[in-house]
């Protein structure tokens, strides 16, 4: 499992070095801050979808959830003049409810995750547009808005979610990186150290096997979808403050694909049962740097999706080859052992 992370880390270093050589401006403090910020924003969503992918499921609605959360938050703080903390609480609650509905439809109504979350993608996107009459808006109120009285509080939140903290004389750390750090750590501990994390891996590898071991697999799947939407909700709040202006029709569009791409590139198998948070966030950074690099090196931006596709494909192929090698080595070890034991046990077959 650790070896997978080495692979993706190698890719990160490679992409990083190539871009830095092609254009030294890549290493400028401003560009680095941007890279860290966008990698963090993508990273948060990718961690969420990793939980679902580890169970063998999929969530296509992430981008629309990001959009809806950003829209609803702005609607609350700017138009409705709701207390901003309450507004954040309510939007996060909404994201949790969305995940709960996904989980229930998938486990209790036995619908396919692809279908449920595809419908989610369509529904939440159109809700965003309908709610705002497709007018763009941001979380920070202007004079004349109902929420203007909370301006001070909102600016403070704006700093928390999209501010910068100076580190040394040159570099300013974007606050989303702190969110990523905390969430990644929590996600990792959840997956590796808690029994629920183990259950997610077990059911992703073999749902029946997990169920026959007395695990409530339905509940664990619901947990995964709730976490996924919740992380998308946090990402939605981060994006709302970061962008300042939310486009109901566009904000978050295709983000589910970036998140899934990062999860897959980071070592999650869509068959389930595999993957680590560290791999996924490194992969999210790789994807950001590739976009950055395409811009800086001057390759036509029309090619950016194509290049991303090729990199992911190569990464996944490399990963499969590595896994095959490791499996062969393990089989060889087992065979050797079996041969030794069958030679030894000829004479003595007694139990006690």
């Amino acid at each position: 499992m650790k070896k997978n992370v080495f692979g993706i880390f190698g890719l990160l270093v490679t992409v990083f070095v190539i871009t830095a050589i092609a254009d030294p401006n890549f290493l400028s403090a401003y560009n680095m801050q941007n890279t860290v910020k966008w990698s963090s924003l993508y990273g948060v969503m990718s961690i969420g979808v990793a939980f679902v992918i580890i169970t063998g499921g999929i969530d296509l609605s992430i981008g629309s959830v990001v959009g809806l959360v950003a829209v609803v938050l702005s609607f609350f703080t700017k138009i409705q003049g709701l207390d901003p903390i309450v507004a954040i609480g309510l939007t996060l609650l909404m994201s949790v409810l969305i995940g709960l509905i996904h989980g229930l439809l998938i486990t209790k109504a036995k619908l396919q995750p692809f279908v449920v979350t595809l419908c989610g993608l369509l529904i939440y996107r159109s809700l965003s547009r309908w709610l705002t009459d497709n007018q763009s808006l941001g979380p920070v109120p202007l004079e004349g808005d109902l929420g203007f009285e909370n301006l001070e509080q909102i600016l403070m939140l704006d700093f928390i979610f999209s501010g910068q903290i100076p580190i040394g004389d040159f570099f300013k750390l974007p606050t989303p990186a702190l969110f990523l750090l905390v969430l990644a750590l929590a996600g990792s501990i959840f997956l590796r150290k808690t029994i629920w994390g183990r259950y997610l891996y077990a059911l992703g590898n073999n749902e029946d096997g997990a169920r026959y071991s007395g695990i409530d697999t339905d509940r664990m799947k619901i947990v995964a979808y709730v976490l996924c939407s919740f992380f998308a909700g946090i990402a939605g709040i981060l994006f709302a403050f970061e962008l300042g202006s939310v486009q109901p029709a566009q904000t978050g569009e295709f983000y589910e694909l970036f998140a899934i791409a990062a999860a897959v590139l980071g070592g999650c198998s869509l068959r389930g049962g595999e993957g680590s948070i560290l791999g996924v966030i490194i992969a999210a950074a790789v994807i950001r740097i590739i976009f950055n690099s395409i811009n800086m090196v001057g390759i036509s931006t029309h090619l950016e999706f194509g290049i991303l596709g090729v990199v992911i494909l190569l990464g996944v192929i490399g990963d499969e080859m590595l896994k095959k090698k490791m499996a062969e080595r393990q089989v060889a070890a087992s065979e050797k052992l079996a041969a030794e034991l069958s030679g030894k046990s000829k004479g003595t077959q007694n139990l006690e």
Partner: protein
Amino acid sequence: MSSDSGLLLAVKDLKKSFPGVLALKGVSLTLGKGEVISLIGENGAGKSTLMKILAGVQPADSGDYHIDGQKVGFKNVREAMDLGIALIHQELNLAANLDLASNIFLGREPGSKGFINEQKLHTEASRHLKRVGLNLPSETIAGSLPIGKQQLVEIAKALSCNARVLIMDEPTSSLSQKETETLFEVVKGLRDEGISVIYISHRLGEVKELSDRVTVFRDGENAGELAKDEINHDNMVRLMVGRELSEFYDREIHKPGDCVLKAVNVVSPTYPEVPVSIEVRAGEIVGIAGLVGAGRTELLQTFFGVTPSLGGELEVQGVSFSPRSPADAVHAGLALAPEDRKHHGLVLPMTVRENASLPSLERDQKMGFLDHSKEKEIANVAVEQMKIKTPSIEQAARFLSGGNQQKIVLGKWLAMNPKLLMLDEPTRGIDIGAKREIYKLMEKLAGKGIAILFVSSEMEEVLGMADRVYVMHEGGISGELQKNQMSEESIMQLATGGSLSA
């Protein structure tokens, strides 16, 4: 080589290994023209592996294989069929939606330029159907026939390829007594026509009736040969298990304690019409016998909450219990080692440690966190107690042999101290050493007062291990036999829907 010239088929010193197991350690087999031989042995003795090699399903690692004195080595089933070797599979392979003629000539339809000559197809098919005693129109849809007749269609299909050797792997495992008799008539008729048969079965009565000679395998090796006049139950069993039966199934009858599982009119969803009542007491080993498809697995799954009961009442140690999921059953102290251990019993890509500790995690948690030292302890105890052969507890379960995988399944349940341990075909596909260890373990657990309920299709296993046996037929209990009433005949009688007095 010239000494083998009288033989239709001869193999010598054949070896075959799979990851983690040496399935065949150098076996030999001969077959003359018009001879019916039986190949017997416990599960995992290597019978099916050899048959697959003979029929070209898989290649051997090394060894000689002669047909008509000529050395052969098949790359695929088609090459074997061209030389007249046909395997009748344990599971039938007919396309249920096609008619009999199309099934018989599937892939070899007479005709030209891509068009099928329907007339020739049906006349030829009818001819072969008659040879196996089926006087049915060749337009009959295969899926509409009962299993016994489908089996005969399979044989007709083999004959249509000019088969000279029919390999029949457990052909009667899902046949009624009547269907079995019909099959035997057909086999005897074919033998008189000069066709040779290799017959594999666990039913020693059938073997005795049908065979000109018996070859016995044990643990991937030849254990002995019996000529026609030496074929009897005791000789066969002794060669199969390598020692006297009583020694192999080392049972001590414990005085049964309180009732652990009591089922009254429980209804499994597969057989909604047939309520089932049984009980298992502490320290008892109770068997469930019956034909394939009699509803035995479904019954265990209902007890375990996989497919919740549609009615009736269940009690565990006198407390009413209605499991909606395996999680409920595990909480009530039940454990199930399922028949399909690769899909239900284990999470194969996970390690021995992760598999062994999976059910215990909830109990051993520290506020939701894993207790790593406890986990390792459980895995180490399982490896030690069960004698699991693995390089380490960090080895993925899928790289271990079937026997060792089954031991992990048992190990993980033992860590839970179950009140009732249910085992579904506990020794299927397991080598004889591991088998013996599993029997010893069952005995040991019963001695500790755990109630054990096991399903088995292996007659010897049921007779050897069970204190008491329930026989199932078409979803219901057709009879209960005490130790002194248990015999191959009485069990088969009940399993095929007969009653004891008949």
